[in-house]
């Protein structure tokens, strides 16, 4: 940890706080009825996206999940536009056509959140294939959950990446619940990382609440990928502090369990404790960041609230990119 540059430490803190602040405000706005649809919040898992993304460049790719706001923010996605998207506004990053589960910012290599569990994993492999065939030294990272690691796409994609030695890192965010089903009832193995052995690639399990630990394993995996040594499977053991979705009654876990995690394993609190104890950052530096983040999130909400709705005729736009003579978008 000592070798993490101060600039990077400040970025890590800002990123985690930004995700937390974003998600807490989104929870409130959703409860007020200002955000339509479903939202799945990333609160509690901030250290995973942050520890991994600390090693990524703008040109690197990620694929994300239905719980994708944290990945989006950590990859440097446009927060004003994403907040407007959550509101369904015309200024949204997807012009109001994607919403929370499809937040994407192709300009920063965020190939999209995905409403289909495991659906995005092969896309990261595809981006990695493109990187390899173009002779680039970029990487692609697939984020997914413990539930997705039981899916066909996980196994097929990881096998392809392994045989083709592609520059891709698979990051399983094992938050211990596949909606309501606890991890112990989904899989007979102790760690998702064990599955790597079946594909002949390294698998490593890490404490996903400890951003420094995630940073270390991600560093190694991403370096391996960049050096042409092939994929790695990382399991980050983490915990979602909120329900699966906002409004989830959470009858499948006890309040005591949730409180224990909040009290003992909050990644932001753990980070603050460490950097202050070791004298790496000061209270003032942390305060400054928190203030700045609050302002930034408030500005994004103001932007979203003041933005116009999409025009009705836009419903027919953006299906295809290449026009043709024949009828493409059918209406009787």
């Amino acid at each position, binding site marked *: 940890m000592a070798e993490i540059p101060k600039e990077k430490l400040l970025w890590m803190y800002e990123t985690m706080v930004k995700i937390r602040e974003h998600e807490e405000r989104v929870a409130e706005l959703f409860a007020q009825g200002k955000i339509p649809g479903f939202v799945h919040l990333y609160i509690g898992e901030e250290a995973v996206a942050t520890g991994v993304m600390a090693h990524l460049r703008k040109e690197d*790719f990620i*694929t994300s999940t239905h719980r994708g706001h944290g990945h989006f923010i950590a990859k440097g996605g446009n927060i004003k536009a994403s907040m407007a998207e959550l509101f369904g506004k015309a200024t*949204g*990053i*997807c*012009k*109001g*056509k*994607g919403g929370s589960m*499809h937040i*994407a910012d*192709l300009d920063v290599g965020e*190939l*999209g959140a*995905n*409403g*289909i569990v495991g*659906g*995005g*994993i*092969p*896309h*990261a*492999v*595809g*981006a990695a*294939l*493109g*990187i390899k*065939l*173009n002779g*680039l030294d970029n990487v*692609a990272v697939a984020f997914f959950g413990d539930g997705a690691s039981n899916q*066909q*796409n996980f*196994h*097929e*994609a990881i*096998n*392809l990446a392994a*045989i*083709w030695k592609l520059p891709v890192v698979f990051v399983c965010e094992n938050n211990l619940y596949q909606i309501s089903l606890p991890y112990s009832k989904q899989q007979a193995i102790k760690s998702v990382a064990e599955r790597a052995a079946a594909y002949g690639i390294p698998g490593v399990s890490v404490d996903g609440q400890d951003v420094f630990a995630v940073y270390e394993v991600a560093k190694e995996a991403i370096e391996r990928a960049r050096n042409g040594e092939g994929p790695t499977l990382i399991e980050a053991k983490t915990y979602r502090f909120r329900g699966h979705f906002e409004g989830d009654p959470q009858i499948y876990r006890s309040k005591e369990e949730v409180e224990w995690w909040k009290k003992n394993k909050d990644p932001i609190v753990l980070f603050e404790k460490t950097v202050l104890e070791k004298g790496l950052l000061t209270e003032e530096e942390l305060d400054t960041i928190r203030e700045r983040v609050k302002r930034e999130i408030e500005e994004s909400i103001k932007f979203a609230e003041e933005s116009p709705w999409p025009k009705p005729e836009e419903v027919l*736009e*953006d*299906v*295809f*990119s*290449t026009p*043709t*003579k*024949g*009828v*493409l*978008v*059918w209406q*009787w």
Partner: protein
Amino acid sequence: MAVVREITFAEALNEALDYEMSKDPKVVVMGEDVGRYGGIFGVTKGLIEKYGEERVRDTPIAESGFIGTGVGAAASGLLRPVVELMFIDFLGVAYDQIYNQAAKMRYMFGGKAKIPIVIRTVSGAGASAAAQHSQSLHALFIHVPGLKVVYPSTPYDAKGLLISSIEDDDPVIFIEHKMLYGIKGPVPEDPYSIPLGEADVKKEGKDVTVVATALMVHRALEVANKLEEEGISVEVIDPRTLVPLDEETILNSIKKTGRLVVVDEAYPRCSFATDIAALAVNKAFDNLKAPVKLVTAPATPVPFSPALEKEWMPSTEKIEKAIRDVL
């Protein structure tokens, strides 16, 4: 002067792939047995020798994984993959990547993504390949917004349409009827493209319009030529691309003849045939002089025995009867 010679449907497709690979290093071919084996119907023959294992990739049997990989590669902007789904019947294990991913990404991302992937696949009965290797499932693609669907009937169309499909920035499902791979037809040696969304009038006529797809175009033409001897003039239209659909050419023909028969090998309900019938009723009802007739397979799985399969497929006899019925 352009050289035109007789080559097979499979060879025509191979020429299109070869041309696109030679022209654009981003074009890669992926799928089961597309490399050394040259594809189970020989369409990718010789490509691995010419372009190497990196660009002609044999995949494990993992359709969802490698089609999804193609989708990601296309979305990244780094490649233009041509992915082979060995039989259209295997769609079930990979459908999510096609209808939920490839087809929707552009729209869901507000028009930002381009997904230049071509999924080539093999369709159709007639080879005693039984129920899991013989289906005509193109309606499953037509049904989903965001996919372009191409279904050619001649070697000439196959080459020109595959070139257009690979150069298109949208996901294209390119369907090849397995009974057509061996048919020969005139094909220019030089590359050329046929725009997506343009139907071809395979035979002009004035008494009845027959809209037919792929193998059925040939059966419809056989019947049309036979009836011509009796003085019955049949116009045969091959849409060639099912999405986008050349509505104009079809409607103009119906307006001219006043009669419509649709011949399609797929199952009867919620099908391409019912779609064209609905189009005629919606937009050319006043021109119709007789009820629209549909000639399709029955709603059963495809049987194995040649005796049963022959009965299952739309035959020239059934097509002829349908034409006589509307006259």
